[in-house]
């Protein structure tokens, strides 16, 4: 009898106050992993960015010098400009192509749709080194791209795409578009499936053509997917390193340098860990800012649209 009360009190406490703690136990392993391998390195990077540090001897604090260098270095500013160009190729174009493909695939019944979807998604799965090596071959002076140009009488346009100062950056951009559009397409296809078919029927009864359907129903309904696609592709564009390292190393000259290239060089070649950390921190903040802006731009009007299918379902 006497045991009854404390037990009851214990169980009541467990539900009211102890709940959150016992819940925490479940996430401790993951949290520990996250803290040790993500949070702690971030803190160390931020700390290192205020020092002049070669990774061996005692670091000397330099205040904001590393950050001042980041914002005053001409080479870095040029690299940032290259990144902005790449944004068009890595984010804007893949989203547009993805929308186009998803719109077409959802309207037209295609035999072997799964196969096509898988094939178009393939670039996203391939290792970036493989992608880089393959495209180096495709874009070489005697590669298939120039071969096709010569065959159709456009031989005057053929060039060494990755070795020409004017075409190297757009060429790398095209590789990025090729890698990213499959991801966008799959995201959008998944989004289209959730759109209520009756909306299309209603639109068709009202006399809407395929183009009107796309802009009035498909595009607004895909707002959340577009937002995710943009976040993923913009992040990929701004921190892109492996594709460039394996195709041009920033050359010819400095025509394809990007900020992450300098992070690598400062950290692993120049042993200037403070400078590299400062640049990495700035890059992270820039990416976060751009992502927040994209989310804000796409969210507000998006919520009104999402509500429509939800009402449909409750009815």
């Amino acid at each position, binding site marked *: 009898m006497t045991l009854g009360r404390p037990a009851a009190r214990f169980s009541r406490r467990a539900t009211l106050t102890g*709940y*959150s*703690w016992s*819940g*925490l136990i479940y*996430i401790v392993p993951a*949290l520990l992993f996250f*803290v040790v391998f993500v*949070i*702690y390195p971030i*803190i*160390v990077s931020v*700390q*290192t960015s205020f*020092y002049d*540090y*070669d*990774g*061996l*001897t*005692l*670091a*000397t*604090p330099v205040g904001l010098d590393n950050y001042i260098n980041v914002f005053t270095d001409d080479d870095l500013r040029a690299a940032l400009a290259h990144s902005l160009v790449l944004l068009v190729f890595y984010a804007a174009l893949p989203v547009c192509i993805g929308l186009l493909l998803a719109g077409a695939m959802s309207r037209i019944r295609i035999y072997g749709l799964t196969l096509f979807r898988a094939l178009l998604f393939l670039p996203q799965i391939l290792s970036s080194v493989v992608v880089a090596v393959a495209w*180096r071959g495709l*874009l*070489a*002076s005697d590669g298939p791209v120039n071969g096709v140009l010569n065959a159709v009488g456009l031989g005057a346009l053929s*060039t*060494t*795409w*990755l*070795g*020409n*100062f004017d075409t190297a950056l757009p060429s790398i951009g095209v590789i990025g578009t090729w890698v990213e559009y499959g991801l966008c397409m799959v995201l959008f296809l998944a989004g289209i499936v959730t759109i209520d078919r009756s909306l299309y029927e209603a639109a068709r009864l009202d006399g809407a053509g395929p183009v009107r359907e796309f802009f009035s129903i498909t595009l607004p309904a895909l707002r959340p997917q577009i937002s995710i696609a943009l976040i993923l592709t913009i992040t990929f564009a701004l921190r892109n390193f492996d594709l460039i390292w394996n*195709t*041009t*190393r*920033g*050359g*010819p*000259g*400095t025509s394809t340098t990007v900020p992450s290239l300098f992070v690598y*060089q400062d950290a*692993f*070649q*120049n*042993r200037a*860990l403070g400078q590299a950390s400062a640049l990495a921190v700035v890059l992270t903040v820039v990416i976060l800012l751009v992502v927040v802006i994209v989310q804000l731009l796409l969210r507000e009007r998006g919520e009104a649209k999402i509500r429509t299918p939800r009402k449909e379902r409750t009815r």
Partner: protein
Amino acid sequence: MTTRHRTSFTARKSTFVIGAVIAGLTLAGCSAPGSSTGGDAADQTDIDAVVTAADVAKLGDITLKMWADQAEEPLMKEVVPAFEAEYPNVTVDITYKSFDDLIATVVNAAASASPPDVFQGNIGYAVDGALVEAGLVRSLDDVSDVYGWSTGTGASTLGPAMWSDDASTFGSGTLYGMSPISEVQGIYYNTEKLDELGLDAPTTIDELAEDLPIALAAGEQPIMLGNSDQYAGTHIFSDIAASEQDPASIAEWIGGAEGATFETDGNAEAASIMADWADKGYFGDGYDGLGNQDAISRFADGDGVFFVGGSWNGASLTSEDFGMSSLVSGGVGATASPWHISSKSENSVAAIAWLDMLHSPEVGQQILDTGRLPVITDGVTATDPLQEQTLTVLKDTIAAGTQVGYYDWSTTDMLTTMGGALQEVMAGRITPEEFTATVQATWADTHDTP
């Protein structure tokens, strides 16, 4: 309602926990990174006589831990059993790393609490300079004296492993490493095409320059070049630059000698010759879009008459179809990554015995047999004509003393700066003077201490 309340309560608490963890970690990491205590090179016990098997036996049963470049593995398979047979109490345990991986991690490994006893670094400031500056490698002056490394055929190859006391310049000073493997540049030629064109193998840059228009007129690509990695062009540039000025002055500049400059007439002239050759099509189209490895395969497949390259390219070429001639006027070239002994090693006697074995004619022969070039060229014999020619090129070049090392030794970012700027000057986007000024500015960032 209750659900929402509970969620926010949990969220607040876990935010607090995460916050506390972060704060704790921040406080823990608040001291400046790095340590002021490196190895202490002053402690080392110098040797005054050749290390004998009896000296090594005194250490008892030991394991000699090593880190080496993956490329050394075929050679190590020959050397390690011989070493373990001669010093039976020693077990050799080698960790192989790819070259990129090795140079990115070996300095930190050497600085760790349990560093390998023996390891390969890389010449220049990024790796060897950091090792010497932090006192992580043992001085080898005593070893060199006892074993007579500073006399004999390999003597001139030791320079790049010698550093000033503060690790600010290299090329002379205290010896900290030794490489048993040489690298030499020369002109590879396609024997059949040279015969068709009625040309002799060129042995100077001037002779090469005379042959190039003849090859071009015959519809051949005169020089096969793959410069997308940005370094192959600088090697050809170095050959021209060394024929335009005293190679010793280039070596001094690379070593970081005070007051040295890249803005010389010779370098500007060499850059304008590179631009001229590129403009005339001697390097073909699209050399900036071709990787160096791809260029070698194309040359091996019969594209191009000449390939200006080094002994490290020879493995792809057959001796029936290709030959190599010396460029005694000089250019890049030196040794492969030097071997170092950790200043913290308790088995330095055994480590010295290891370096001695690497520096022997027997291992020299094994180096040649495994497709590389030894620094000890006396008493080694080549097995095929191209190997023989390459060995001759090495002997000629070392005798001439015109190897300058590599430009990217000069500063850690030189490869990028110089490689990129050379691409621009070859494309006619900047003038030769702008090229030399850009390169010198990068050099001055590192070497001109205010």
